[in-house]
């Protein structure tokens, strides 16, 4: 196989549009079709009648999910799409773009797989991406219980949080954190009335191998060893820090001075804190004094109401990083008899006590992979866990190869090829799995065992 520049790809791009009933799929479709873009677009709708624009071709389809005789999940395809698109691609008047809308309850797996397991589809069409619309308000009714909602979020290359006018900013933040935890590779946009720019939902290259790692920088956001940070503005003095016994017998904290509360300085303190949290902590017991500086304190929280105090000598801004959220231990800071509130606070761990069964596991590792070991590990992984792995993509550094190796996959379908040569940047491996019941530690361990 050889590398192919995207623009040279003569195949017609296809976008799959998913989302629960009422999430705004039809509104988005109508927006795309009515906009003046000069493109010929064919739409495969899950039923007739809702979209109505004359100059475009709209075909109604009934979702026909076909499992193959061998019972393999990766061979589950949309039979109706193969038939309809097969017919469509015969015609001389070619389309620039094809949009496939699924029903609200659809599992995106079979739709996506249709474009990889059928040779005819593969030679003429290119799956560009999966766009999932999320009703920012009503999704909460289903996100914990509905497999379909979880799958639609997990499969997406683009997530549009729609109907933002129905919720508060806090609720929206909470939703974004939640879906981000499930799918760290997707681009997330917010929209009021499905009014997201068309360029953000079409031609996203979600299955384009060359762009496999061209994802939101947040995707590779490190996992922070702390869950919370508060920025305090503290005059000189001694500040009692009261806690209550909580879920853990101890908690690490760091109190770092920051020059001011500009985002640049605050951001720099995050990196300091990450490093600090990897060092050995100094045990502190109730009644002891904590001074700001580059030191990780391990507070013993075995008593009913442990109390510490912060000794501030030079007045200024201080960043307090805590391993757990303050509310878990009812942690409060006092100045005399007054509560001291942070001027800013930030959560570093998405707020999901639900322990989402759907999650993303990202791996970034320097070093070269042993091809044989990697092949063996990957085929075993897909054989045993392919059903639970919805999407994966990555860039690999293979031992003895000058070129990057890029891959993507849907369930058990693995699609990979050599890409451009490594530049002077450090060779490294970067990959992400999105799926159900993923064992982060085991995946990392398994991948590391493939290093040459």
């Amino acid at each position, binding site marked *: 196989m050889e590398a192919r520049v995207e623009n040279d790809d003569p195949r017609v791009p296809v976008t799959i549009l998913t989302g629960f009933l009422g999430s705004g799929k039809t509104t988005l479709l109508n927006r795309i079709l009515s906009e003046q873009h000069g493109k010929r677009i064919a739409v495969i709708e899950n039923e007739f009648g809702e979209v109505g624009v004359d100059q475009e071709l709209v075909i*109604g389809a009934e979702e*026909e999910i076909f*499992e*193959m*005789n061998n019972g393999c999940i990766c061979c589950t*395809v949309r*039979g109706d799409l193969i*038939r309809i698109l097969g017919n469509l691609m*015969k015609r001389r008047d070619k389309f620039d773009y094809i949009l496939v809308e699924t029903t609200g309850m659809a599992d995106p797996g079979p739709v996506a797989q249709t474009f990889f397991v059928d040779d005819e589809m593969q030679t003429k069409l290119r799956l560009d991406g999966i766009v999932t619309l999320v009703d920012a308000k009503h999704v909460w009714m289903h996100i914990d219980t509905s497999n379909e909602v979880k799958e639609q979020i997990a499969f997406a290359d683009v997530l549009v949080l729609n109907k933002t006018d129905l919720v508060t900013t806090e609720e929206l933040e909470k939703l974004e954190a939640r879906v981000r935890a499930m799918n760290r590779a997707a681009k997330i946009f917010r929209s009021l009335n499905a009014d997201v720019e068309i360029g953000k939902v079409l031609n996203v290259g979600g299955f384009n191998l060359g762009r496999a790692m061209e994802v939101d920088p947040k995707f590779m956001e490190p996992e922070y060893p702390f869950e919370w940070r508060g920025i305090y503005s503290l005059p000189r003095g001694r500040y009692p820090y009261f806690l209550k016994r909580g879920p853990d017998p101890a908690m690490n904290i760091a109190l770092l001075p920051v020059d001011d509360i500009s985002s640049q300085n605050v951001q720099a303190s995050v990196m300091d804190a990450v490093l600090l949290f990897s060092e050995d902590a100094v045990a502190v017991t109730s009644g002891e004094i904590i001074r700001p500086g580059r030191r990780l304190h391990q507070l013993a929280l075995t008593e009913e109401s442990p109390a510490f105090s912060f000794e501030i000598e030079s007045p200024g801004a201080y960043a307090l990083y805590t391993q757990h959220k303050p509310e878990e231990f009812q942690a409060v800071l006092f100045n005399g008899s007054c509560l001291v509130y942070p001027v800013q606070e930030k959560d570093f761990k998405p707020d999901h006590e639900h322990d989402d069964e759907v999650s993303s596991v990202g791996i970034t590792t320097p070093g070269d992979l042993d091809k044989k070991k990697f092949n063996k590990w990957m085929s075993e992984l897909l054989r045993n866990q392919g059903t639970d792995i919805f999407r994966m993509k990555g860039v690999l550094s293979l031992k003895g190869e000058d070129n990057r190796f890029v891959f993507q996959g849907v369930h058990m379908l693995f699609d990979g090829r050599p890409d451009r040569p490594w530049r002077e940047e450090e060779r490294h491996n970067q990959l992400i799995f999105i799926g159900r019941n993923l064992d982060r530690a085991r995946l990392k361990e398994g991948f590391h065992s493939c290093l040459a």
Partner: protein
Amino acid sequence: MPGVAQQAIPAAHNLPEHWSAVMDDCVVSIAWSPDGEHLSAASASGSVCIFNVESGGLERSFQAHDFGATSVKWRPAGKEIATAGQDGRIRLWDPHAGKLIRELEGGSAWVDHLAWSPSGTYLASAAGGKLRLWTIEGILHREYPQHPNTIAAIAWRPNASELASACYGQIQIWRPDSDQPEKTLQWKGSMLALAWSPDGQYLCHGNQDATVHFWIVRSAKELQMWGYPTKIRELAWDRRSRYLATGGGSQITVWDCSGRGPTNTKPIVLKYHEDLLSQLAYQRNGPLLASGCLGGRIAIWEGKNRQPLFTAAMPSAIAQLAWSGDGTRLCVGCEDGTMTVLETSESTAAARR
């Protein structure tokens, strides 16, 4: 005239070309008239052309269906043609006058398949999950119970009044006089094409999961052929019901069904095409097999001979192949709309000498 963009382009091949014409879009269906004097062809744009076989002249062309045609079928021993399209309609025409005789409702958005019964008494149509049977006059004779999925293929049993329909999960065999299927054959998977052996003993289907499945209809005994590179839509039986040629890749796999049948035998493999096969057709009264591929190549094969007798190159992917009733000519329809009639009888005789 609608339906024809330009005339005759020469193609390089070593089979003599009788004539060539170009239709306005991909040729989706070809039918010879029962007397072999005319050819009808339908295109993806919905136009239908009637050609004079001897002269190659276009006798008639008309827009048969908006949104594209799917099928054109000449009534056995009759004068009418039936066409079906993506407008949900079936139309009966007087082809020579280009006159619409009757318009029928398929029952769903697209009518995918049409088939005249061997005697020409009934016309069967399949649209979505609806299977309907019409009389020559275009009167609905019967609507069979709704199929659970879109009907993927229909085929009349040769010399019989039995119609097989395949949809995801099952094949059913129907009679014109009953709503109840005579037989239901369960097969979990997606079928793409059906082919009865000319003696009516075997019914086989090519499948999405790259297998070919056989039924010995009387006993409902079944066989499955594995190992194809891709899905199989190309199936052809030779006139003696001995060889079944199958596609599903770039090489042709021919199963010998004589004696104890193909069980545990090695198939004959015919290699010539470099692109995926798109069409396979045996002569109805002779031994020749014609094959066409997406690369626009045609090959003619005889018996177990692993070398093609002839080859020919067409300007684009082969979309349709149809032998004339007497087997002396092969009509080729291409994706770019090219219609070509090749002469095979004299060349065959010469090649054998």
